[in-house]
């Protein structure tokens, strides 16, 4: 079956954000959700563990059940889903070029929602030294192997990182009878908040803080790693490396297209309704902000879906570049903020920020030069930081004073 050449709303990506938006829109418009994977659900599809669904379904679910529930809900609302469709390019109009088994075609729409999600930073992006044997993989790859294929790629790997996903990697290992031998974190404290860091101790996995992974050893398969920590250099015998976290938006699709990318976040630059630089495009979910929980992405997808409804009903104000006010960051440690612009309407109720190093200090927000909010922060890279969405329009400056 070939993709249709025209729909009202095209949603690219069938994860929690895309499915939530499709559910909102489907009763009113002809909505098509495409995904390059073979089934809907996004990343939760291969997170065969708890906890998912509290916010959306009001009960505790495993990832695959949650993914199926969200997909069923979108379908029941009347959205059409097509798997195995890869979007190759975005065009003004809007329209997109796709490839599917039938070959290359174009889908035109009134509005396009981008919800393509994230991936973890690879070993290459982190410039980890040593050889390139088999058995080095992201948590995502491991989960796919374990939960979708019933595989066990190694027996006693090390885990790099201490984000939420790193603990999810431990759960995945437990499911497949894999026993991690160490958890390695370059920072002085774990990234995920208490009580997650207790978990490896319960599982008997040594947590090495302030420790860098210097080199991976082995030619065909991983044979060991060299780490450097407070006790100096150390060799750990291991047969795999799980390179977890440090998510990046899956947003290369934006290159050379009409949708501007924010170099700081790596995702599209949006306003507070999720609208992109080309006003026919919207974006939601983790491609905006690496990384948030599935529940967060679902809520955001729903909010942006409602904004698209308003837009298509003619309720949204016409886009006027002069009324797009930038949100500016002031302070070295602040790495990105979403949304990047304010332009009248609000669908998102909070600003999201991240820092690139451990920080402690006063975070404040000014609109038109006047302070409208402030609070103390103590945070680390990859941790969520929120500010209330200002109700006034005007240039916004967010200031971090450390100390």
């Amino acid at each position, binding site marked *: 079956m070939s993709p249709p050449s025209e729909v009202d709303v095209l949603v690219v990506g069938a994860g929690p954000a895309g499915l939530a938006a499709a559910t909102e829109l489907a009763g009113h418009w002809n909505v098509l959700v495409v995904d390059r994977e073979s089934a809907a659900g996004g990343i939760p599809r*291969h997170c065969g563990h708890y906890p998912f669904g509290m916010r959306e379904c009001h009960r505790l679910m495993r990832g695959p059940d949650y993914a199926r529930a969200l997909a069923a809900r979108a379908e029941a609302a009347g959205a059409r889903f097509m798997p195995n469709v890869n979007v190759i390019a975005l065009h003004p109009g809007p329209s997109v070029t796709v490839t599917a088994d039938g070959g290359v075609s174009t889908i035109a729409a009134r509005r396009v929602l981008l919800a393509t999600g994230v991936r973890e930073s690879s070993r290459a992006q982190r410039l980890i030294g040593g050889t390139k044997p088999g058995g080095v993989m992201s948590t995502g790859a491991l989960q796919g192997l374990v939960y979708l294929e019933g595989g066990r790629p190694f027996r006693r790997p090390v885990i790099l990182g201490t984000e939420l996903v790193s603990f999810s990697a431990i759960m995945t290992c437990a499911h497949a009878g894999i026993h991690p031998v160490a958890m390695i974190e370059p920072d002085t404290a774990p990234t995920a908040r208490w009580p997650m860091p207790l978990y490896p101790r319960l599982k008997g996995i040594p947590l090495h803080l302030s420790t860098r992974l210097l080199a991976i050893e082995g030619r065909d398969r991983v044979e060991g790693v060299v780490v450097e920590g407070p006790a100096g250099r150390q060799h750990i015998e291991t047969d795999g490396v799980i390179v977890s976290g440090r998510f990046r938006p899956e947003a290369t699709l934006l290159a050379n297209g009409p949708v501007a990318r924010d170099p700081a976040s790596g995702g599209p630059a949006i306003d507070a309704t999720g609208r992109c630089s080309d006003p026919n495009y919207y974006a939601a979910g983790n491609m905006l902000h690496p990384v948030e929980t599935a529940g967060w992405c679902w809520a955001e997808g729903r909010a942006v879906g409602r904004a698209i409804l308003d837009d298509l009903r003619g309720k949204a104000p016409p886009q006027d570049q002069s009324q797009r006010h930038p949100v500016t960051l002031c302070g070295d440690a602040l790495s990105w903020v979403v949304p990047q612009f304010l332009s009248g309407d609000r669908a998102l109720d909070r600003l999201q920020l991240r820092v690139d190093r451990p920080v402690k200090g006063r975070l404040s927000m000014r609109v038109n030069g006047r302070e409208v909010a402030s609070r103390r922060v103590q945070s680390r890279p990859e941790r969520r930081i929120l500010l209330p969405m200002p109700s006034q329009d005007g240039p916004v400056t967010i200031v971090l004073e450390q100390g």
Partner: protein
Amino acid sequence: MKGPVHALKGRFDVAIIGAGVVGCAIARRFSLAGARVAVVEKAADILDGASKGNSAILHTGFDAPPGSLEHACIRAGYEEYLAIHDRLGLPVLRCGALVIAWTEEQEAALPALMEKARKNGVTDIEPFSRTRLHETEPALGPAARAAFRVPGESLIDPWAAPFAYLLQAVENGAEVLRGAEVTAARREGDWLLDTTQGEVRAGLVVNAAGNFGDLVDEMLIGRRDFNIRPRKGQFVVYDKPAAALVRHILLPVPTAITKGVVVCRTAFGNLLVGPTAEDQDDRQHAGLDPDKLAALISRGEEIVPALKNHEVTAIYAGLRPATERKDYCITAHEGLSCITVGGIRSTGLSGALGIAQHVERLAGLTLAPAADPVWPSVRNVSEFQSRDWEKPHHGGIVCHCELVTRREIMDALSGPLPARSLAGLKRRTRATMGRCQGFYCTAELSRLTRDHFDQPMSETTE
């Protein structure tokens, strides 16, 4: 330990040790000349040694030592590649190179380099002023002072080319024994090579063992005429949007020690920065060094400052078989029916077809060339020609970053030279070589390759 399985039956005219780019080109040349050819490779798949990590450039030989065998082989290899690439389905992007001076001293060296290029038969070079240089390559760093252009320098697919050479050899009768390390050799009229997969009998032996060339010579003829000290080159690959930053291959002015850091696009639409040049004793492991990679990245950002805003997709390192000699070490050993093809350093990809011509002449075999040789066409995975995902019934995309189709994967796992390892599959198809490095496609690949690899990607628990 002798494995009785898979031994090649009968007598071969030529046995080639090593299925790197040089061995593959020689196999093709002898097969087309009508010889019965055997190729023995110790790794599970071809192109697993020096040939797995290079800069993927087809050089004109403009900067080779004048009068050297290396120069002659590159010139001949370049010509032959252009003559045959279409028939084999191999891509070439004739984007040209700019040799760029970044200091006053380097600028002063440009005229002599241009003179050398002309002496080497590369006469279509032209000098570029600072203004023209920056007009031509607007993303270039402000410190670039002047350059000259070498229009013939080109980009090719570094794996498809040798794969096609060997495939053509196989389609014309050659046999390939993989996972077969030569452990001993003796002459009883013919050569008898003991391999870990059984015995191979051949009239002539060609040593194309790359980083192990000197050791294999000792085994074959009891001596070595050169010593290999591998030179490691590390590279950084940027994601595809970075490829729009440059058009030419950006070459530095070489120093006495190294050719320096190159910035160029790749056949797969990425941007490459490298290599380093580090001598080492280890012939097996090409280790990546974070500090050296970080230095490459900052050098890359001096050459093209906008790289600061681009993401790294991959890092890799290759080992070039450097020797104490300045030139290739290609010798036909008198009365021994043995030819050594050693010390093919960084120009093996450009020189391979020329080296093969030279080796065929050295061998002087009297053969009857095939009247109507087979010309197989390989699947294109470069960005310079149309890709499988553009055609119908490709079965869906498996690797999303590199747009590798299910049909491409299944093809690479079958046919006369099927991939036998993930590394081999990656080189044939690009699967997992993109920005996510397997985040999305590992599970699917594990399923598709389950019964095809010597070492499966994952054991199964269910």
